[in-house]
């Protein structure tokens, strides 16, 4: 498959890994944070770790859309589905994320709530058109990758004067989360593997402030394993040279200024949310968007007068620390015992982009010591 096979080629990867081994200084530890869960999964799914020298390690970042959504927001959505009798549409990844105690959208659906898994924001719109007598709410989540499609359906809904369609907006922004992790300084980070798809939207220039302020190099990396390895090489070279620049490895998709049509669309529909609670990172100012006054009629939080709900995470779950890069998933007492993909206690074990799920699904053979 073009644009996939060449970026999964083992020989290319091994050649690049050889350059990394030649470039690393033996007395330096290179601690690299991959911001996105997509990278975490690429690293584990393809066994990228197996090719890295001892002193290059990966720290897993918070870039997993469902992982950073606090349980309270899911609880709010469940109440909306159950108490307001709406049709709640959501991306499937969210279905099994633990909300409050032992609850999830999946369980609410089994109890009778009308919750529909959709693959695209426009599916929610189609459901609203097909059910004019019901209120349809799109439970919108994600970083800048999924924000433009939400903006697009809001625009269409307004143009169509759909009176039964609203969006429960939970879209968050990448640069503020990155800045927060760097400013908190809890995890030592020598370099950052920057987001792939998010950067295609916001452009490589969006991270300049991060690099300048915290003197840390960042390489925007594609999601395939060869992309990751080449980006590691670029980071190692910057670190060795004492540089802290934004570099773009993923040039086949990311430009300096990103997708300006998508940016304009987002600007038309959304405004900065003063403060938003992230799972793991706490309440961060100006780190998320909300629907602006022009589109207020399509804001589920306004139409249903939704209240903020605060729900504690499960005791013992270290998802928050994992999301901040402080711990690896297998350092959690619940990992693989009380918390598994079948019965997740924390969001990081659920999502196809969660670090715990990557460790469990692909990486366990290392910790279990199974013979090779």
């Amino acid at each position, binding site marked *: *498959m073009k644009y*996939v096979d060449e970026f*999964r*080629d*083992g020989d290319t*990867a*091994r050649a690049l890994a050889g350059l990394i081994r030649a470039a690393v200084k033996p007395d330096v530890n290179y601690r690299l944070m991959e911001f*996105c*869960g*997509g990278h975490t999964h690429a690293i*584990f*799914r*393809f*066994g*990228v*770790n*197996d*090719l890295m020298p001892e002193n290059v390690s990966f720290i897993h970042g918070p*870039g*997993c*859309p469902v992982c950073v959504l606090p349980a309270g927001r899911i609880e709010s959505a469940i109440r909306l589905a159950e108490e307001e009798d709406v049709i709640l549409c959501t*991306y*499937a*990844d969210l*279905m*099994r994320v633990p909300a409050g105690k032992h609850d999830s959208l*999946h369980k609410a659906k089994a109890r009778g709530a009308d919750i529909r*898994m*959709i*693959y695209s924001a426009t*599916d929610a719109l*189609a459901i609203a058109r097909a059910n004019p007598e019901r209120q349809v709410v799109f439970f919108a*989540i*994600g*970083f800048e*990758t*999924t924000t433009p499609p939400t903006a697009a359906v809001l625009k269409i809904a307004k143009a169509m004067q759909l009176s039964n369609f609203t969006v429960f907006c939970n879209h968050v922004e990448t640069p503020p989360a990155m800045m927060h992790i760097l400013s908190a300084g809890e995890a030592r980070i020598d370099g950052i593997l920057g987001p792939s*798809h*998010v950067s295609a939207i916001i452009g490589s220039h969006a991270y300049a402030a991060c690099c300048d302020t915290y003197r840390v190099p960042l390489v925007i990396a594609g999601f395939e*394993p060869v992309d990751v390895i080449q980006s590691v090489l670029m980071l190692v070279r910057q670190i060795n040279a004492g540089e802290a620049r934004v570099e773009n490895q993923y040039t086949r998709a990311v430009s300096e200024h990103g997708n300006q049509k998508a940016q304009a669309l987002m600007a038309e529909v959304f405004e900065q949310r003063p403060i938003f609670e992230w799972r793991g990172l706490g309440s961060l100012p100006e780190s998320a968007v909300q629907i602006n006054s022009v589109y207020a009629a399509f804001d589920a939080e306004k139409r249903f007068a939704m209240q903020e709900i605060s729900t504690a995470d499960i005791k013992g779950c270290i998802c928050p620390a994992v999301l901040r890069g402080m711990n690896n998933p297998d350092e959690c007492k619940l990992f693989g015992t009380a918390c*598994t*993909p*079948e019965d997740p206690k924390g969001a990081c074990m659920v999502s*196809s*982009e969660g670090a715990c799920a990557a460790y*469990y*699904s*692909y*990486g*366990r*053979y290392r910790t*279990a010591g*199974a*013979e*090779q």
Partner: protein
Amino acid sequence: MSRLDIKHGIIEMGHGSGGRASATLIEELFVRHFDNSLLSQGNDQAAFNVPAGRMVISTDAHVITPLFFPGGDIGSLSVHGTINDVAMSGAAPLYLAASFIIEEGFPLADLEAIVISMAGASKAAGVPVVTGDTKVVERGKGDGVFITTTGIGIVPAGVDISGDRAKAGDAIIVSGSIGDHGIAILSSREGLEFGTAMASDSAALHTLVAAMVADVPGIRCLRDPTRGGLATTLNELARQSGVGMRIEEAAIPVKAEVRGACELLGLDPLYIANEGKLVCIVAAEDAAHLLAIMHKHPLAQNAAIIGTVCADAQQMVVMQTAFGGNRVVDWLAGEQLPRIC
């Protein structure tokens, strides 16, 4: 007795009441199309003589959406599914029983199309539907039609196939490309239509199995990787046999269309359902010979040895990726869901 208006008619509660309407439905639709002497006798059961030996029985409920998909429909699927479950013991399937739960309001034309397809699959396989049952549920209490089929078969002497017989050193064979059925279904499911010419691989595998056991009666395990895909089947066999497995990604046949669809949707072909493929575990010394036999059968021309069974107390399935790394191939948790980022 009134005739069925197949073109315009729909299923009504009366069709399941056991009265005259039921009899009409059974005669004009089921008996007519399934067309065999045992069913035509009109009894509540079918009586027949069986040869001596080991018999197997298997049952499978079919509840698929959509009912009609590229490469098949619920009718042919319900025949293939049960024939395959019987055949995975090495048995030659003899007879099928079929039970229909139909939702009130279901178009008779659709029901007939399903029954014709089912009868065609059964005739092609040489495994007749010899008894059955029909129930009608109120509108909203079913999903069009559910079909449960039960099959029986006879295991040839000297064949002892079971999921708990895999041993360290054995070879793992898959009979062809994986994921075709699941991707065909996904591509035609409402809300996810995407352009692909992918057809389901739905097929009856008993003639393939017959050819395999005729030459290599010592085959240890056979299983068709349906729901949960190849990954789930390998994990089931590993657990049943108390062994581990080491497979090679590069050796697993996957069609380009399936790979493409999986890439796009963020799915893994290892977890996508198949309806016309089997996994076989066989002693290493028999593997090459068996593979050659499989290649001669139209349903296994792309059969491949994909790995080996090993001793592993953790019973893990570990795959060497085409990329050169290793990863665990775990059980499927929940359902496979498209990624959003």
